[in-house]
């Protein structure tokens, strides 16, 4: 039933069991996916507010554009591969196949870990080059944004590690399907966040 129809329903007129087995208005979706959907919106709000703050702070006179370290391209590649591997795992699990499932899923997480290490190396080389967190506001934002992004990834990796243990201890693809799908969704989301962030950071 459409949202409009639901909200204009006159509950005092209609009696009886409405909506068949599941109540009207519930998503045809496991609760975990609904909750993750909400969480993605929350995370988007966090990053958008930081984006707005970035733009406002940028307009103040002491702003100096960021020196764009080329390592970031490499890191982007790592995160991209990570996402691709997750998608591969998802497709495999959805088809109910076992082959390569572990490689793809575990590999996806490993590449995310490599991305995080890459980001940290970038921090190191920036600091060596004298761009400290206090040097100027663009740098402050750089550390803050990349740090928060990593924090989100770490949260995902925690879920990933639990799922990996289940997978390695022999759970069937059918039983893992939802976990794998949600991890994949979350990884794609964080990749998009990173791409937008990277675009803004390197162009301003």
């Amino acid at each position, binding site marked *: 039933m459409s949202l409009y129809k*639901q*909200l*204009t*329903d*006159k*509950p*005092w007129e209609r*009696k*009886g*069991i*409405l*909506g068949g*087995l*599941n*109540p*009207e*208005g*519930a*998503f045809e*979706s496991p*609760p975990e996916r*609904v*909750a993750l959907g*909400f*969480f993605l*919106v*929350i995370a988007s*709000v*966090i990053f958008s*507010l*930081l984006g707005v*703050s970035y733009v*406002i*702070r940028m307009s*103040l*006179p*002491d702003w100096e554009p960021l020196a764009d370290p080329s390592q970031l391209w490499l890191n982007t590649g790592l995160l991209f591969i990570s996402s691709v591997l997750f998608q591969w795992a998802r497709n495999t699990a959805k088809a109910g196949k076992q082959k390569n499932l572990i490689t793809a899923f575990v590999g996806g997480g490993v590449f995310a870990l490599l991305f995080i290490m890459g980001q940290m190396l970038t921090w190191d080389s920036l600091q060596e080059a004298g761009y400290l*967190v*206090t040097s100027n*506001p663009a740098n*402050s934002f750089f550390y*803050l944004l990349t740090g*928060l992004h990593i924090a989100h990834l770490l949260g995902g990796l925690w879920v990933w590690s639990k799922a990996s243990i289940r997978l390695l201890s022999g759970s069937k693809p059918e039983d893992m399907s939802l976990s794998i799908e949600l991890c994949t969704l979350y990884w794609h989301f964080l990749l998009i966040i990173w791409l937008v962030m990277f675009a803004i950071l390197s162009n301003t």
Partner: protein
Amino acid sequence: MAYVPLADQDSEMEMHHPHSWVTKYVWSQDHKVIAIQYGGLAIAVGVVALVLSLLMRMQLGFPETFDLIDPSSYYQSVTMHGMIMVVYMLTALLLGGFGNYLIPLMCGARDMVFPFLNMLSVWVYALSVIILMASFFVDGGPTGGGWTLYPPQTAMAGTPGHDMGIVLMLLSLAVFIVAFTMGGLNYVTTILQYRCRGLTMMRLPLTVWGIFIATILGLFAFPALLVSAIMMLFDMLLGTSFFMPAVIESGTPLDHNGGSPILFQHLFWFFGHPEVYIVALPAFGLVSDVLSTHARKNIFGYRMMVWAIIAIGGLSFIVWAHHMYVSGMNPYFGFFFATTTLIIAVPTALKVYNWVLTLWEGDIRLNAPMYFAIGFIFTFIHGGLTGLFLGNVVIDLPLSDTYFVVAHFHMVMGVSPVLVIFAALYHWYPKVTGRMFHEGMAKAHFWCTFLGTYAIYLPMHYLGFLGVPRRYYAMGSTDFIPETAQDLNVTITYAALFVGAAQLLFFINIFWSLRNGEKSGPNPWGSASLEWQTPDTPPVHGNWGDELPTVYRWAYDYSVPGAHEDFIPQNVPESVEPTADEQHFDPSHDTSKADV
């Protein structure tokens, strides 16, 4: 295959059954125990905040007589009082407490969708309270920058708690937000996905609607506070300049440069204004159900009430800068935000009309929860009207930062939600404990609180007109404030002490009644919504025994012509002529008519 409701398809349910005292009462995953943990802790910190406010009143009423607090501890008291009341008391009690208790019961579910996350939520909340309380014991004490925490002032040497105090405050807020997010994801997902068979969204009691939309507001507004807390922590601990401008502190320039304090204000109020509705919307919902039940009438304009809740929720994100009229922002902004502010008053007023119309020609049972609910209508109208004044830029400019603002927000988000909370605590007390409270004591509690808080906040409007500024330790001598203002201050302090003491009536009542209250039976008020139809009172783990309920009607079938009793519970099929037995309504416990 036999029908298995969504909420019962999860075979994990069995695993959550508690086996020992510790898993039953400490690390419990039962939403009802968690609700009591959340609520108890929220009330406990609320008492701390109440004591702080009485200390401030002693100073304001008798500036030279008592030496209880010095200027620094006055500012610290203001700050901690405000922040605790708004975030750690009201938000936690209304959503963590009432939300946890009522959502699964009103939705006909066995528990929240993610019971483990729910348990984590309450303990992370406890951690945030511990961090906050720790700031009382560190060097320099808690922060004294005001609950709005505006930089650069909070970070400057002149402000008490500018070093450790503010850091702990920001940390505690961040932890609180994590706790809230874990709880909030649970509330929204449970409401959407775990409603029992037949329970459409438009059949939900308004309590659930209020909590639902408030939780969504919280989930999307708290990130603004989180972001500003993190950025401020960066400024304070790492020396960045997100918010900190170039400032000179006792002759030495600080290391900061070029940050924007106004940016902080925008972020803070982007959270801060929705926050007032995070507190108000659950209260709106709860009070609607209390009013309707005790007026024995369906809520007037149910659909409009739902739409108003949604509209208020949406609009509350585009009015924030009415808190910043004096910040020096672009006057066109002021024009825009004044307009949206006045628009949000429309759905708010609509709700008030509907409450009054619900009472109109109702078969009103004037028992204690109803007293508090009707009291709320008075205080809320009062506070709402002063909001309309403040919403207009030209009127706000002279009144901003005076006691008029203090009076406004205390009427509208202090007294009003607190009256609703008491109404709700008394209303649901029989379900939670299986006992009735002492009616006479509860009514005495009402009159002391209602009249007492009026005696406190009504005079504050006049102090505001006189130009008495808020957050001042002492006025000294000024030309524009007549000396008689001090007489008002003395009166207010007496009233505040009286109201503070009167709350003992509440605590004595609820603890005394735990053992000595009359047995209430499952549905003492003759209420139609699901939580009153549980097979056990208080409801046991799993709530519904073997089979989840099925819902056939909305939650407001009161005074139905031709019905056996004057109400029909939600889970009674339309084909069944209700009998007294099925409704769990025991007239011998109907104390409600006692003194009409």
